[in-house]
């Protein structure tokens, strides 16, 4: 029996050894092999593959392998690979995962390795933790209000003055749209994304995160829920069940199917929304609380390029990131797919090539530049925030919990996740 066990064990080892052999050391012909992981849509995969091809042409000694998956399974795959000691050399990460990965020692400091001189320095800060540059932002996003101008005109609405409109104005305008259309379209869709709450709270001077904890007060959270409840009660927007159905992916958004006049999404989703809708979508500033001094709006890196702390090819990895953020050739291929480039030279070089929707985004970002709050990196554990907020919000909107209780639950669960 022992011998059998030994034989089996040997067989297992042999099998797994061959299985691992593929990815370990540099590829064929003395080339340095890099693995670059990222998530996204099919179109992003095509763009990225051609950017990789352009990079390999310039650097024949480096062979980049794109490791692509959709966002739902991306972190699961990345964590598993990291656990197995097989982390990709260059990893894409979004802002909520940054503290998680950097804080656990999975990322390398890129300072001095990647040329960051031409990047927007205020955005670049959003890649720094504990004085180290763990990540390079790929591009920026903001969380605006989006309006379908064609639909607005058709239903006899007026363009709001987004420099002065309040939350009440927004709800009234939306309610009017629902009524005028005979409930054929909704005035607005809304989104349970934490970014929305962040804007809302920012107008009261409350940051979403402060000192490694949630910086929101119970009252602010409850007022935000009251806002959503008012949208539902006045029929300015649909009920919570409908929003769960359409409110998470831009291709199912009510804006994309011309079923609502207003709605909020990330600015780099305007292109997809416009394509889906086929009508003229425009960006607006978010409505404000009366008398608020700050707009609450903020810039946020769409995602980051990072280098694994365990890579054997950090020079090649840095070269690749450098190419992606600084080389106009890469910029011309990737365009605004990973957010609007923060390298001013690249942006100037590719501006003419951007789609009409993305040109609007670029112009909009320019116009609100002076009104933005600084970027705050969410602490470790923030990856759970979206789910925790969604759960608490839904429990209120579906009448399963009182706002008082739900706000307490949210804060304790959220802080629990952050201090874990």
């Amino acid at each position, binding site marked *: 029996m022992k011998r059998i066990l030994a034989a*089996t064990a040997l067989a*297992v080892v042999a099998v*797994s050894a061959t299985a691992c052999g593929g990815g370990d050391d540099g590829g064929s012909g003395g080339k340095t092999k890099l693995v670059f992981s990222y998530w996204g849509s099919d179109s992003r995969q095509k763009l990225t593959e051609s950017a990789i091809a352009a990079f390999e042409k310039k650097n024949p000694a480096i062979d980049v392998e794109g490791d692509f998956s959709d966002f739902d399974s991306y972190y699961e795959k990345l*964590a598993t690979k990291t656990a197995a000691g097989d982390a990709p050399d260059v990893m894409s990460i979004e802002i909520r995962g940054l503290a998680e990965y950097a804080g656990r020692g999975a990322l390398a400091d890129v300072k001095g390795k990647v040329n960051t001189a031409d990047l927007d320095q205020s955005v670049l800060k959003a890649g720094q933790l504990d004085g180290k540059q763990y990540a390079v932002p790929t591009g920026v996003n903001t969380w605006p209000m989006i309006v379908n101008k064609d639909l607005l005109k058709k239903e006899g609405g007026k363009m709001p003055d987004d420099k002065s409109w309040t939350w009440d104005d927004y709800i009234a305008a939306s309610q009017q749209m629902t009524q005028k259309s005979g409930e054929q379209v909704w005035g607005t869709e809304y989104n349970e994304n934490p970014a929305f709450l962040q804007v809302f709270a920012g107008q009261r001077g409350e940051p979403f995160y402060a000192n490694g904890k949630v910086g929101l007060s119970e009252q602010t959270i409850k007022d935000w829920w009251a806002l959503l409840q008012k949208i539902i009660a006045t029929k300015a927007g649909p009920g919570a069940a409908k929003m*769960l159905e359409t409110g998470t992916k831009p291709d199912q958004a009510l804006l994309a199917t011309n079923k609502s006049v207003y709605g909020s999404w990330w600015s780099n989703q305007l292109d997809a929304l416009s394509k889906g809708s086929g009508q003229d979508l425009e960006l607006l500033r978010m409505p404000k609380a009366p008398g608020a001094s700050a707009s609450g709006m903020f810039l946020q890196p769409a995602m980051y390029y990072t280098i694994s702390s365990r890579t054997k090819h950090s020079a090649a990895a840095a070269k690749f990131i450098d190419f992606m953020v600084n080389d106009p050739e890469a910029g011309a291929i990737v365009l605004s797919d990973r957010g609007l480039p923060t390298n001013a030279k690249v942006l100037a070089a590719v501006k003419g090539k951007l789609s009409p929707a993305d040109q609007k985004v670029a112009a909009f970002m320019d116009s609100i530049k002076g009104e933005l709050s600084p970027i705050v990196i969410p602490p470790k554990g923030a*990856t759970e925030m979206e789910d925790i907020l969604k759960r608490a919000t839904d429990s209120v909107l*579906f009448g399963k919990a009182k706002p008082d209780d739900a706000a307490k639950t949210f804060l304790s669960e959220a802080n629990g996740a952050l201090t874990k």
Partner: protein
Amino acid sequence: MTLRPVEASTATGTAEPSVTSAERAGGRRPRRRKSSRARSQAWAGYLFLAPWFIGLFAITLGPMLATLYLSFNDYSMLTPPHWVGLHNYDKMFTADDRFVHSLKVTTIYVVVSVPLQLAFALGLAMALDKGLRGLSFYRSVFYLPSLLGGSVAISILWKKIFGTDGIVNTFLGWFGYHGEGWVTSPDTALWTLIILHVWTFGAPMVIFLAGLRQIPRDLYEAARVDGAGRWRRFRSITLPLLTPIIFFNAVLELIKSFQSFTQSFVISGGNGGPVDSTLFYTLYLYIKGFKNYEMGYAAAMAWVLLLIIGALTAVNFLMSRFWVFYGDEK
């Protein structure tokens, strides 16, 4: 395959299928010397079994032991595990409301959907047992949902059917009912999953059908001569003789439905919503391990699930003594 279990089992010196009934009756077993031929045949046997062994050790037993170890650790996957003793198990039952909630959701799901599904399967099996023309065609058609039911495609389809503008609401709209989406309302979401489970009645149905075929027809004839009605024949002949099959199906479906994952993962978009109404145990386990970086806790949850299913199955077997009737018992 012409593998001879006789040699294979004696070589290990443990199992006894080679012992004839005469030997068993006679008590003493003649000592056997292993010929070199027998030994080489034994090796051939193991060689053929190797794929199974590799599977068992590399992808079942190994990982199981690893999770057992990890369940006593705090393990984020990004950093090495560190030992915390029974903390994960302790937390589960004392400080995690969502864990208890997921257990509740799963229990409701199992307790409602398994009996319903079995009743449905039995009813259809009896209808098909009437000697329908084209039986094999119907059997395949009804079996189809079982093959597809756990798939992602069907879950997406379900989401559409029970959505705000889905078929169900369109149909109800003709009768003046205008409701919200069934899968996105916390009060109804779990019930759509239960319906989905009941709909996959094909596998138990086929087994029931085979079981019904085993019941001697003359029993029915005799009962009919004695004036037994349809219900009486069902109560006194079909049901008792079918109890082993019912038992088999019940055990199987119980184990399977406790581990349901795909349906709620797809329909809720991976978070068990709305408001945790479809938070299955395995989905919560997945969320803990892969989304919240608490792999140690997830490992502990996996072991608790194993214990729960094991205990329920044991109870099932104990109870079976009182209601399952095997034809050869007198």
